[in-house]
């Protein structure tokens, strides 16, 4: 029987539903579990706080309109830096398909060096390249992971590659989950061409075809527990652009899978009275803090033309830094240019001469997520290890060096209010003297806040995603990753979710009845 996508905003009254498995969150993790379980014949319900936005509608939105309708908090969420750490802008999607809808499409497997620490130091024995290969391959097929051809590279990326070649630094083509991409460069605001195979296009339609029902604009407030077992969820049917309550939501289920993402899953577990699980809920937040460097060239670069992310360098993996291609809209570049008035205007006139690249830090992290007493969105704190402070500066310097080798006239470092530096000024610029609190940092990867562990004392879920000491409750999203990866995580989150789903699919739920 075919399922359906039901808009909570269009639904009248309360919602009372029964199913085998209820999944909270429809992003990379939730959509994967929902689809695999529906295909395995389970009666699946997915509850998603955001609304559905079909692909062509993305093209009708300006970037700032996309922030209003697709991104959480208009893209303004921040993790507050503590003890000298930078305050980091953390972005997420709030839409059917979750953050997967706004990715650059970049797909990486976890580097072997990271897997070695998981299997050796954290005793997660199955987490080896060979042990995970079949799950990875399955997801890569489903979302069509392909290499970005050189023809789709932006001039911005080409310049970076030229500089890297001069310095002998290897750069590789990026792999992305795309099919027939035309390089229009809009990926972070939803692909209007349906070329980026985010889970709303690659997974969820298949879940619906296999009988799953997806409810959008449905916010889950807590998991219903009975005698240490999860028996369903409760929440609100929402309406309106800022999510006003419209009706009560109650779902009874034999299994509950939480996939709200690294910032919201710990909130939901905490709100559901799972104190017995231990102190790790909401701790161990890693963010992969990212830093961009702009470079001004004599030629017109128009870096927004071409795939946003088409090349990367892992040459500095041992230093905890991955260099990755990126480009942000011209309006965002303008926002980060210093000064006001004519001096600011003069710099913004140079925007079509700007190239950029990013450094993503494989952080030790140590951030945490807390309930916000005044509202729904969490309060996040972030701390940096000494090693991370050094990695940040290393990454920024490397990109600047590479662009200068490519002939850049000026580099703009991600320091609040700083002006462009000529090659000579950069050589004398002491980045170590700039406190990290003055650095402009962004993250799209909140991870680790309900981490997986071999022993209950060390984490929140077991190696198969089941919440420790709790029956019927699973987590399958970025929050379960045991550490930061040093590379973009969507593929790994989907791999882990597939693994959890296949194990869950093997459970015979037909003999179990729903709790009253």
């Amino acid at each position, binding site marked *: 029987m075919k399922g359906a996508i039901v808009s909570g905003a269009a639904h009248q009254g309360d919602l009372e539903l029964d199913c085998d498995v209820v999944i909270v969150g429809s992003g990379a993790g939730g959509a994967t579990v929902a689809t695999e379980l529906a*295909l395995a014949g389970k009666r699946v319900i997915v509850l998603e706080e955001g609304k559905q936005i079909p692909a062509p509608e993305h093209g009708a939105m300006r970037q700032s309109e996309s922030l209003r309708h697709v991104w959480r908090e208009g893209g303004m969420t921040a993790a507050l830096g503590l003890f000298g750490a930078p305050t980091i802008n953390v972005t997420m999607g709030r839409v059917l398909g979750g953050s997967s809808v706004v990715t650059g499409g970049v797909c990486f497997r976890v580097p072997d060096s990271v897997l070695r620490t998981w299997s050796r130091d954290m005793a997660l024995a199955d987490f080896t390249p060979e042990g995970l290969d079949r799950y990875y391959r399955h997801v890569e097929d489903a979302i069509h992971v392909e290499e970005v051809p050189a023809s789709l590279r932006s001039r911005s990326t080409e310049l970076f590659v030229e500089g890297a070649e001069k310095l002998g630094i290897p750069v590789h083509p990026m792999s992305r989950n795309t099919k027939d991409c035309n390089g229009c*460069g809009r990926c972070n605001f939803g692909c209007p061409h349906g070329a980026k195979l985010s889970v709303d296009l690659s997974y969820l339609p298949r879940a619906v075809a296999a009988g799953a029902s997806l409810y959008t604009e449905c916010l889950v407030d807590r998991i219903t527990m009975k005698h240490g077992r999860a028996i369903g969820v409760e929440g609100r049917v929402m309406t309106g652009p800022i999510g006003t309550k419209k009706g009560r939501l109650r779902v009874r289920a034999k299994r509950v899978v939480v996939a709200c993402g690294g910032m919201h899953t710990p909130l939901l577990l905490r709100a559901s009275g799972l104190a017995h699980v231990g102190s790790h809920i909401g701790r161990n937040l890693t963010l992969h803090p990212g830093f961009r460097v702009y470079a001004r060239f004599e030629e017109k670069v128009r870096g927004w033309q071409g795939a946003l992310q088409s090349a990367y360098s892992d040459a500095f993996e041992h230093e905890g830094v991955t260099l990755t291609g990126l480009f942000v809209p011209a309006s965002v570049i303008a926002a980060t240019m210093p000064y006001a008035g004519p001096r600011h205007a003069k710099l913004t006139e140079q925007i079509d001469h700007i190239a950029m690249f990013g450094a993503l830090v494989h952080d030790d992290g140590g951030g945490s997520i807390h309930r916000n007493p005044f509202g729904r969105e969490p309060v996040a704190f972030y701390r940096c290890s000494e090693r991370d402070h050094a990695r940040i500066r290393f990454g920024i310097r490397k990109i600047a060096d590479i662009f200068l080798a490519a002939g850049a006239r000026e580099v703009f470092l991600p320091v609040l209010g700083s002006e462009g530096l000529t090659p000579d000024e950069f050589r004398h610029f002491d980045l170590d003297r700039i406190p990290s609190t003055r650095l402009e940092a962004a993250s799209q990867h909140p991870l680790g806040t309900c981490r997986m562990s071999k022993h209950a004392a060390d984490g929140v879920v077991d190696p198969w995603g089941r919440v420790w000491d709790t029956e019927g409750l699973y987590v399958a999203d970025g929050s379960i990753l045991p550490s930061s990866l040093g590379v973009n995580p969507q593929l790994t989150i989907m791999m882990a979710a597939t693994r959890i789903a296949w194990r869950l699919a093997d459970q015979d739920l037909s003999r179990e009845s729903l709790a009253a």
Partner: protein
Amino acid sequence: MAAAPKHALSDSSRRDAQAFGEALFARTLDEAPPAERMRWFVDDLDDFVAHLNLRARWLFLFCLFAVTWVAPLLAGHLGRLRGLSVAGRIAALEALEQSPASLALFGARAVVSLVYYEHPDAAAEIGWDRRCLADVRPERVAASRLVPLGRSGSSAEGART
């Protein structure tokens, strides 16, 4: 898209945002951008804020407050930013940028710039062709982009080993 309440910004906040935008985006020391563009900017900014949840709204308003009141103080003036000439406002904003409160300016500037540079004339001034908006062909969005999902490499839909 769902309609949001039209005015999330009070009249006073709208005037503060306009004064901020006029200084930030001025191309000469004594002249603000065209009035029609500023009206569009303030209306669209209002719509942007109307779509934010309460916390993000308060965050923006806090940043705007810092720009409105703290920036003039740092430039030696008591009163709102909008009480100053365009040139005075520019000096005040640049003083705020060099102060420990620069993060507030950064927050406010990020939001207003995102909106302002989407006005076609403002985009043209910075050479932004916004090509990515022009090239959308809905018919290219195939109804199904799905490859068969089988477990362990099997291509049979739903097949499980």
